């Protein structure tokens, strides 16, 4: 991956809580075998309403989704991340996230950043007033900045390091391959095995 240090973009306000992964991308759009091609499925049901935020021409090109608490609760489908990315969303700011989604997002360079409730409310209000309201998500300084304010955030240190360096997650783990092999030698012998190993 390319190193990712910060992103600046206009806010797309989504003033809803508990936005589940089935809303972000309904399962019938999750049947592709690729990691791309999901933009059509993004919020497919909600986009049927003309007044949905993604249909607002004044907000076209917005790339920072700001949402209510418990964003992307539910399923483990990484398609939710791929769909947001395919649409052009580079960051999601919310008071809390579904755990699995947040992990998936950072693994794909989608900046899922947890901010205090009051900050999210303030950003939603600002974006309601000004469709062109921009924010910057800075992964180096671990802070979100906007006209007149800034807020620090926390992020999993390993995920941050991988993004800043553009490193491959698996390659980093495999660099510790000897440790994994050593661990495997000490595993209890009765643990189950599958397939050919079992028959043999």
């Amino acid at each position: 991956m390319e190193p990712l240090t910060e992103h600046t973009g206009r806010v797309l306000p989504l003033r809803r809580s508990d936005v589940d992964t089935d809303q972000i991308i309904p399962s019938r759009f999750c049947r592709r075998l690729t990691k791309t091609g999901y933009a059509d499925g993004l919020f497919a049901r909600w986009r049927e309403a003309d007044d949905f935020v993604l249909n607002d021409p004044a907000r076209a090109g917005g790339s920072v989704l700001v949402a209510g608490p418990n964003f992307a609760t539910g399923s483990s489908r990484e398609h939710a991340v791929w769909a947001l990315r395919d649409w052009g969303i580079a960051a999601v700011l919310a008071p809390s996230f579904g755990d699995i989604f947040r992990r998936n997002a950072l693994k794909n360079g989608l900046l899922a950043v947890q901010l205090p409730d009051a900050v999210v409310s303030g950003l939603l209000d600002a974006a309601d007033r000004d469709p062109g309201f921009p924010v910057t998500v800075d992964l180096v300084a671990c802070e979100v900045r906007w006209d007149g304010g800034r807020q620090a955030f926390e992020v999993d240190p390993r995920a941050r390091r991988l993004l800043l360096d553009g490193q491959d997650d698996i390659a980093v783990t495999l660099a510790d391959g000897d440790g994994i092999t050593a661990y495997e030698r000490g595993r209890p012998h009765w643990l189950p095995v599958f397939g050919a190993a079992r028959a043999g």
Partner: protein
Amino acid sequence: MSEPRTLFQKIWDSHRVPSGSDGPDLLYIDAHLVHEATSAQAFDGLRLTGRAVRRPDLTLAVEDHNVPTDSLSISDPISVEQVTRLRSNCAEHGIELFRHGDAQQGIVHVVGPELGAIQPGMTVVCGDSHTSTHGAFGALAFGVGTSDVEHVLATQTLSMPRPRTMAVEFTGALPPDVTAKDLMLALLTEIGANGAHGHVLEYRGAAIRGLSMESRMTLCNLSIEAGARAGMVAPDEVTVEYLATRPRRPTGSDWDDALAYWSGLHTDPGATFDRTVTLGVDALSPVVTWGTNPGQAVPLSQAVPDPAQFSDAAEQAAARRALEYMALEPGTRMRDIEVDTVFLGSCTNGRIEDLRAAAAVLRGRKVAPSVRMLVVPGSMQVRADAEREGLHDVFLAAGAEWRLSGCSMCLGMNADRLSGPSRCASTSNRNYEGRQGDTARTHLVSPAVAAATAVAGRLAAPADLS
């Protein structure tokens, strides 16, 4: 003496692979379950980077999300493509696979346990959020996305920060008509759909000790609906008895070694949790959902709530949105809500005990003419067990459909989808907008309530039937 530890801490500590670099430790994964809907891109990633599956012998694949439950042959072209890809990936990497039509096929979270392949103290992951089910065995089990599936395929480990711990203490005795499903819906109502965010739950208390393994799986399955990372129940004699007859249990002296190890898998007296939630169960009764997340539920005896009664503005807004989607008016008695579909199945409530509970209600009764009822066993083994007990005769005589195994109508990914503004009483796990069909409305219920509802044509408990 070492520090007292929770069950979670013991499993976490025993699976830590010390990291050579300055990063966090890795967690070793004992069993990786794979299915067709979230794995293709992970195998592609291996191919692109020239990596192998590190431990095909710790990996088991099942076809479940996108298979038909009315036919042994798959006709939908996209399903064929997904399943064909899983088959070629498993063949290429030497991974054991249960195919649609095999006697051992079924929903991945039903199949693993019934084989006896999920055992106390293990770490288990799968590219599916309901992997939390396996925590019923005193395993640490959680769902992951496709990037993590690839990471586990390549390294058999995951790097993750240690989650916080939360004790869920159920106090009192469960009334006889209250099931694990009701217990969890009651808990979700209490703590909310995000009430356990970032935590691994341990379910505790006498009410849990009295639950069968099937019920414990229902309990742990729904942990994710509270936003939890995982849920678990410490192993006991119920766990051991369940495993003792399973084909993939340890045998001979291995069994004795395993038993000795399992006996230490409990939270030590004096160990502390980051949080504790207590829920009295004595006064519980069957619970059903009225809204569009599993935490929006009330006892069946009550009415649809008024959004104004919720304390915070966000909850009020969410309730109003939910009622609009569900086409429900505040004050409507839950028992007056008519349904046109009843779905009995899923990794939440598709096991033999669930089918028995529903059959006990349906025996000698008929599904209402206005209702279509689908019975989808959680696995082909469950289906065979049910047929041996004659349960299929009960379902068929009542007018229900007796189907093959798969995820079916739980998630609306396969052909088992509702069309139009259907209203469904479902034993599954998510009542999200559009989950079972674009405009479908879902009420989550227990198997007994599902069966009674099918007979009454509206939400009902067995006791409501004459």
